């Protein structure tokens, strides 16, 4: 992680360890940092197979596929099939970790292993099989479906998940980012859907593998090539439009280059109240935000630190918690992704204080958007963000998170070296303009889940 040592730190131990990149045949891109301080390896593999690729009537499919990657593999050559328990035992015997999850944009596989060759080789061989040859057993899926539906219904007895679902839908409207799995959408998924999704989207095309740990170039490329050989060539890389026509959203008038509709701004303010017999109201307020590639990324990041991102020193925390004792937690954040994810403000408060808390948030936001931050606030934000930069990458796991993000969003290789300079460049005016141009305090979606006052 010492690649930024020369720019920011005097410590000799952090002398240049650059992030390296290779593109393999078939499209798989490899990013890595050789960190020898511990005999271990952290690896993330990202596929363009997130929930936004769920068919409209089968929302949740990407998540189900990620879940089922851990539930058995088919036989391959001389290697016999392994069921879910054999897989769980194999990983435990290695003392290694394999997890899979689906976000809005990407399906992410995370592997942690000792770097000792005998352990790592076996771990990777297992991981390849789970990625390339999952069993997707119909009977296991049937069991997991029951479990998933039960967990889904349970979550709907709790105010926080109910609020999150309603908010997503209100802010993202018809965009796939706004959808949530439902009883019906899960019921419609069968084992064939898992196979179809897997063969369409878990391909080398657009995929990234990021590695941080005790690995030299040769070892990295061996692992990456091993993965690339397992991934079937996908028609999507050659002709992305054809595939997106069959798997993308069914009806759109404004498709973006990726085949997904653009996120539309809200046309008017909307208030949604969902009655709930809970001690607290859960409040979510927001609008569509920005995509990761947006030029306003840094001004909005620094601005949001001041508004509601900076722990105890943000305006929202000051006004809602510190001054008035209205909530244990109050925050704001952007969700920049391949497309514009939501800008969200959230809090929880005793039912009868709900309106008061909402009013305080509205006033804080209104003032921030119309007047921007003060020079003093901006300086304090920079002091924290730049001063604390090293805390963002002071473990292999944290560094991997950053490297995987760079890979996924095609950020330049010197992204981490220039990060502090980008923050330093942000002016009061940049933040003011960015918020003013993006956030309209008169067109907010507000979701309240709780007892009606």
């Amino acid at each position, binding site marked *: *992680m010492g690649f930024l040592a020369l720019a920011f730190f005097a410590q000799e*131990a952090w002398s240049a360890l650059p992030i390296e990149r290779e593109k393999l045949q078939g499209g798989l891109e490899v990013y890595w940092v050789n*960190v020898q*301080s*511990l*005999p*271990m390896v952290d690896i993330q593999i990202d596929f363009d197979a997130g*929930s936004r690729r769920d068919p409209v009537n089968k929302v*949740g499919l990407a998540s189900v596929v*990620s*879940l089922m990657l851990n539930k058995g593999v088919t036989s391959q050559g001389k290697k016999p099939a392994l069921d879910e328990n*054999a*897989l*769980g035992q194999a990983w*435990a*015997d290695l*003392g290694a970790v394999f997890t899979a*999850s*689906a976000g809005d944009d990407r399906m992410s596989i995370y592997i*942690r292993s000792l770097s000792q060759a005998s352990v790592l080789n076996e771990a990777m061989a297992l991981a390849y099989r789970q990625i390339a040859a999952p069993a997707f057993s119909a009977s296991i899926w049937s*069991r997991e479906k*029951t479990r*998933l539906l*039960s*967990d889904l*219904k*349970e979550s*709907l007895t709790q*105010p926080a998940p109910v609020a999150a679902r*309603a908010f*997503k*839908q209100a802010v993202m409207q018809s965009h796939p980012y706004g959808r*949530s799995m*439902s*009883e019906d959408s899960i019921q419609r998924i069968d084992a064939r859907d898992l196979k179809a999704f897997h063969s369409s989207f878990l391909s080398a095309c657009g995929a990234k593998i990021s590695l941080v740990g005790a690995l030299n170039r040769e070892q990295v490329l061996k692992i990456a090539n091993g993965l690339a050989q397992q991934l079937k060539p996908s028609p999507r890389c050659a002709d992305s439009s054809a595939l997106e026509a069959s798997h993308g959203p069914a009806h759109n008038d404004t498709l973006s280059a990726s085949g997904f509709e653009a996120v539309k701004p809200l046309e008017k303010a909307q208030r*949604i109240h*969902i*009655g*709930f*017999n809970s001690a*607290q109201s859960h409040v979510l307020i927001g609008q569509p935000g920005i995509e990761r590639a947006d030029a306003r990324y840094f001004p909005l990041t620094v601005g949001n630190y001041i508004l509601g991102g*900076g722990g*105890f*020193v943000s305006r929202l925390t*000051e006004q809602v918690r510190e*001054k008035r*004792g*209205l909530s*244990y*937690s109050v925050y704001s954040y952007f969700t920049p992704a391949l497309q514009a994810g939501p800008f969200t403000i959230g809090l929880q408060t005793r039912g009868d204080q709900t309106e008061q808390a909402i009013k305080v948030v509205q006033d804080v936001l209104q003032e921030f958007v119309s007047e921007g931050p003060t020079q003093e606030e901006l300086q*304090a934000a920079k*002091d924290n963000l730049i*001063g*604390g930069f090293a*805390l963002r*990458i002071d*473990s292999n*796991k944290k560094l991997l998170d950053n490297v995987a993000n760079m890979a996924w969003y095609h950020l330049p290789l010197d992204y981490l070296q220039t990060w502090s300079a980008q923050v330093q460049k942000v002016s009061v005016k940049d933040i003011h303009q960015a918020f003013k141009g993006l956030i309209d305090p008169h067109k907010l979606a507000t979701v309240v*889940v709780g007892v*009606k006052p």
Partner: protein
Amino acid sequence: MYGVLFAKRVVLLSETRILNLLQDRQTVMQGKNKIMQYAFKASRILGVFVSIGAVLAMPSWALSPDPMALKAHGIHVSTLDNGLTVVVKPDSKAPTAVHMLWVKVGSMDEVDGYTGIAHILEHMMFKGTPSVPAGEFSKKVAALGGRENAFTDKDFTGYFQQIPSSKLESVMKLEADRFANNSWPDEEFVKELEVVKEERRMRTDDAPRSKLYEQLEATHWLANPYRRPIIGWMEDLNSMTPKDARDFYHAWYAPNNAVLVVVGDVDVKQVQDLAKTYYGHLPQKVLPVRKPRSEPPQHGVRRVSLKAPAEQAYVLLSWRVPGFTGFDHQQHNKEALALTVLSAVLDGYEGARLDRALTQGAKSVAQEANSYYDFAGRGPQIFILEAVPKAGVGLSLLEERLKAQIQKIAKEGVSESELKRVKAQYVAQAVYKRDSFFNQAQEMGAFWARGLPLDTNDLLMGPLQEVSSKEVQAVAAKYFSDDTLSAAYLLPEPLDPKTQKRQEQAKRMAGVGK
């Protein structure tokens, strides 16, 4: 987003167990591997610190049987004249450091009518000193590029800052100041108390499984202070006064009741000198007497149930078991190691015994099933099994199936491959842990508060490898009778008819239902 539902399967335990450690201001995730979680979970060491004389006179190496071993594990321990223990673990892999101050006082040191006071005081520690007014502490830490938080457990209270290592002196100065000089006007207390009540509503009152766990503890312990929730009963919060917080602070916040832990890119001598400069002048105090409040023996099952709005029923079974108190050859310590392995064999990996027996196959009875063992703590230890039934399965049947898994091991022991597997996980996890300065500091602080050697993690490596199937079998046979069981059932409540309509609307809004 959708991942939350899947993640739930993994975090079910922490959902209920999180109350053992109220981590304020930000969430810090612990590892999920069962065998590695003990550092933060609740020893029968009540005798060790009862005598004030013993605390003040404690030699600097009392914490480890072998100072050379400590150094071999990279840990440097010293004690200031006023009794403050200073622990430094240098590691130059990144130019950052974590600075933690731990006070050996937690909710178990509270008395009836004052539940939650240790945690409220933790909040109030951010509310100023004569030289750093309310709100300024956090601003100053932020200006240094730092991240900060604090946590309250049954056994201890901790404060920390993560900073570029060059800023260590600045945060140490701030922390020493509030440790010695915390003071605030009554109005600050009144506002913050409301924040804490909101915290209780969020963590417990609106979270049926947390509430059930709270009731299980209150049922399981009659005399021991582990019976009370860390967050406090709402009525105690309602009647708490500023003076209560100040009194608790003056009684317990003393250098001879605290440890300073620094991990990161630092020089050992320099940290020790800084500690002397900033903490060395603080006077030691005579601490309040800690009464043992040992739990009388239990001779019969205790049961509690809770009706609450939920879709899924849920069962928690908790048995009284020994905890680990040190690396001697006393039987209870060997048993604590065997219990650690037992929990890992039941539930330490995907497809371990509980998964296999209860959630798989045509005769499965559970959606999920987990085990948990606390390993060590200042108070008595418990071993927990918990499960969510499949639709149509009653909680008493589920309870029987959970117990049957222990009985099976009591009868047959465990396989060599299971033992090997659990130990391989421990060896690998010991390496993974070193990736985070924060986790290393957190583990050492907890070991200190619980009277264990600071290098307990390293020292455990050998003894854990030696645990045999026979030993696991013996603890399974010895400690899991109904006579020392406490069982808690969550009974999903039909929705209030008045709110039924709103719930239907909620489901429609959420896109579920026809």
